[in-house]
């Protein structure tokens, strides 16, 4: 095994472009690892952790493009470097003139578009606060997608936004819906009276899709970033969003989505929410908190959607149900071919919140679950590249995506892992999420389906069944079309649910066998 690197000083491509080339290199025969990244200190560390560093790489700077290939032999590695050069040249050849016409700084863009009112920032975290602050000081609201933003900067910027009366969504904000327009990764959902405030992007996507599925509609969905309800940040964005949605005539029901917050912050936020005089649903995921006057507390995304729709339509919550029936025959068939060695659930998620929710649903059924986002700190996987026992992974986490496309944008990474899990005779069921919408892969099911078929037929050749369950997040009006995606996945033999909780429960029933243990999750699922 050899590692070779090339450093191109002063050459820049955005991370999505680089990831597309990385993905192509990783497909080359003999290549065991490849990454194209800008040489920021963070990227260099991540490369080192992945065994993809060389002295040249260590010496690179943030303005230098780093290309690293790990391969079976030197000539294969050199060939991959040449392939990278060819692909980058192709990319560089077309859009240059178009890029030249673009403003080269936010300052120029602000001057060119004085009417603009919001800036999306998705540059690497160490630089993102500079752009976000400039936008705020220019009177812009900010959608801050970047992660790895220092906590101190988040606090400072949120205080500045509060002072200026502006909305700072993020950092690490993946999704928002403002007045019917999706920012970041977002689905096409019906407009309506439900306003959401979410610390999780995929959480917001899933709840808006479920609300849409239940016939409800969305006024706005405001992202806050994952740390907003922590004690140091103090819920500054959430509080600003509550005030705005409280006063917004189009919003009649407020939904808060977050991991369990700091208790003091939870009190402050819920007090502010109820003070608006609108009914509130608080989905503090994985926490079964008692409801209080004006606030319905629920533990899952599905429950948040159900209660929000009930409140918006003044119906009793019990009457709002997902009309999806579990296909018991398919389930029984999936279970039937399992051999005694197949004992463990393996989950490969692109959405961190969906992964956490599935762990929370499955833990009481299956026992402790290993993960890179574990419920219990003791079950953090020492090496997320290797599953053990029951393992559910957030494949979008930084440590697994170094120089590789996020699985929501490009399924390559996930397919590789899927094949490994499928080859493991201990795997009883594979649980996946597929997230549709703007920003996501244009046809994720079409790319996954052949891989699912290959995985299942390999297992069959080995004398094993391989049940695959998919949690499908999307709507019919998404560019990828929910029904078309569902059909492709089902044709490949997957059991599909549009509820992440139900999908996790299905996986649980497959792995736990015939016994019907205590489930937790959806009250409405009493079919």
């Amino acid at each position, binding site marked *: 095994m050899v590692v070779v690197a090339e450093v191109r000083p002063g050459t820049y491509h955005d991370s999505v472009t680089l990831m597309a080339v990385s993905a192509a290199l990783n497909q080359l025969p003999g290549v065991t690892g490849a990454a194209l990244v800008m040489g920021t200190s963070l990227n260099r560390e991540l490369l080192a952790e992945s065994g993809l560093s060389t002295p040249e790489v260590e010496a690179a700077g943030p*303005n230098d493009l780093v290309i690293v290939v790990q391969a079976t032999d030197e000539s294969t590695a050199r060939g991959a470097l040449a392939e990278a050069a060819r692909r980058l040249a192709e990319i560089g050849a077309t859009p240059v003139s178009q890029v030249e016409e673009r403003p080269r700084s936010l300052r120029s863009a602000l001057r060119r578009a004085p009417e603009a*009112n919001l800036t999306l920032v998705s540059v690497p975290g160490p630089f993102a606060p500079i752009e976000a602050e400039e*936008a705020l*000081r220019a009177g812009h609201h900010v959608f801050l997608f970047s992660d790895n933003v220092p906590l101190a900067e988040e606090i400072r910027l949120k205080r500045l936004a509060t002072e200026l009366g502006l909305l700072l969504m993020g950092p690490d904000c993946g999704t928002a819906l403002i007045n019917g327009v*999706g920012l970041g990764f977002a689905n096409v959902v019906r407009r309506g009276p439900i306003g959401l405030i979410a610390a999780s992007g995929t959480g917001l996507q899933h709840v808006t899709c479920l609300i849409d599925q239940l016939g409800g509609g969305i006024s706005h969905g405001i992202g806050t970033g994952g740390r907003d309800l922590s004690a140091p940040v103090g819920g500054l964005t959430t509080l600003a969003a509550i005030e705005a949605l409280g006063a917004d005539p189009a919003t009649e029901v407020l939904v808060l989505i977050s991991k369990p917050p700091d208790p003091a912050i939870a009190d402050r936020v819920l007090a502010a929410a109820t003070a608006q005089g609108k009914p509130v649903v608080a989905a503090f995921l994985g926490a079964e908190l008692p409801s209080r006057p004006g606030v319905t507390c629920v533990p899952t995304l599905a429950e948040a959607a159900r209660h929000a729709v009930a409140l918006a339509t003044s119906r009793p919550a019990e009457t709002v149900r997902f009309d999806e029936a579990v296909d018991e025959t398919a389930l029984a068939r999936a279970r039937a071919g399992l051999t005694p060695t197949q004992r463990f659930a393996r989950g490969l998620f692109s959405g961190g919140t969906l992964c956490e929710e599935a762990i929370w649903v499955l833990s009481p059924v299956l026992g402790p679950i290993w993960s890179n986002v574990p419920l219990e700190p003791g079950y953090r996987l020492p090496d997320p590249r290797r599953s053990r026992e029951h393992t559910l992974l957030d494949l979008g986490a930084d440590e697994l995506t170094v120089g590789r496309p996020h699985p929501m944008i490009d399924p390559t990474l996930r397919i590789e892992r899927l094949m490994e899990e499928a080859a493991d005779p201990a795997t009883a069921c594979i649980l996946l999420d597929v997230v549709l919408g703007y920003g996501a892969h244009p046809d994720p099911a079409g790319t996954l389906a052949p891989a699912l078929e290959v995985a299942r037929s390999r297992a069959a050749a080995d004398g094993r069944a391989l049940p695959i369950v998919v949690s499908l997040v999307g709507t019919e009006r998404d560019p990828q079309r929910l029904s078309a995606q569902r059909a492709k996945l089902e044709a490949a033999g997957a059991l599909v649910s549009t509820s992440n909780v139900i999908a996790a429960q299905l996986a649980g029933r497959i792995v736990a066998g015939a016994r019907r243990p205590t489930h937790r999750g959806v009250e409405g699922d009493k079919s």
Partner: protein
Amino acid sequence: MGLEGIGPIRALLSEGIRPINVGLDLFADALAQQGVEAVRVAWRPPLVEPLPEALPLFNDPGIAAANQEAVRRMMGAQPVLVDVARAGDVLPGMTARTFLHAGPPIDWAHASGPLRGALIGAMLYEGLASSPEEAIRLAERGEIELAPCHERQAVGPMAGVISPSMPVMVVENAQGGNRAYSTFNEGLGKVLRYGAYGDDVIERLRWIERVLAPLVKAALARSEGIDVRQLIAQAVQMGDECHNRNKAGTSLFYRELAPHLLETGAPPAEIAAVLRFIHGNDHFFLNLAMAAAKTMADAAHGVERSTVVTTLARNGTEFGIRVSGLGDRWFTGPAETPAGLFFPGYGSADANPDIGDSAITETVGLGGFALAGAPAIVQFIGGSPSDALRATLDMYEITVAEHELFRIAALNFRGTPTGIDVRAVVRTGILPVIDTGIAHREPGIGQVGAGIVRPPAVCFTQALRAIEEAFLAT
């Protein structure tokens, strides 16, 4: 609108988004799919990763105010040519063995060919040495004092050597009283500033000292001084950028000077010789523009917490910058070799690394920063007026103001980009564009071409580190 009273967040919710996208195109594409067009910024990573605790410095209102004050002083300076004097009499700290040079501090051992040649010539001119070999021995033994022009209120093009007996033009800032000095431009070809030191070179320097300087001094005495800032402003609208093109400025200066010269009563042959010399040298105005620019830059220097660059200078080996709020400290890096066009018979292998104080023009919004208004010299930067336009437009990304007086017709009389902000250079990765002559790397050969050059990034990354240290501590 009816939305003023309800706060910006509620206005956003009711009006919807009008976005700018900084970062992944994916997000602008997703908006476009929904019929919303975002203004897309062609973002690039900064030259260096700022310290996390230094991130607030990039949008610090106090620094912004200090920078506005610095450019206010820069643009408010009103340089007037008031006199001609002997360098040794007016420049601070001049001894009989003091030789000033362009760029940041350097010693003989590290000096490049053209600088060594010019120092040899100046020692011959001063009579300190009777042969080049003797001059070299003196320099090697450290028997002359070398100091940057910039540290003695002076500027010099290319090698920029000023020795005590040389006459200098005296430019005074009528608004602030600070003065700056520069020698007379010798013309093109084999000249001291390109490192030539033959007899003809020394002879010309003596003519400047004996004939040109006294006559110009006498003419100025009859005038109320010549407002150089006005001449620059007019020249910029006549196709000069006052660094690599000075045809208009030279002509304007000629018109100002001629009547006063005639009235000095000097012999007509001498007056004619002076006027012919000025007429015959399209770059005569360069040194005057440089001295004027130096008064502007010095006026902007020393503003507390300002990150505006007040010096860009090269000594043929190193490029150095200084920053308004960081005292007299130089931030240096290896000078790059200019890219450009070469005279017949020469090529890039002959080129000396970047040299000269003439980048003082870029420091105050001229030179490369005004290239869009100088179509006659666009071939140096790639050939077409649109390249020149692009070069100037890029400089708006790294400057804090648009000049109140220096305006470019081709940009609808927009003011030139003025006042380079170290933070903006680091953040955008856009380095200042500098027009420059190209010297032969061997002493005594002279100019071999002209083109453009950029400072090494390390000058700005070091300056940023110093800003972080100085400004975070206070």
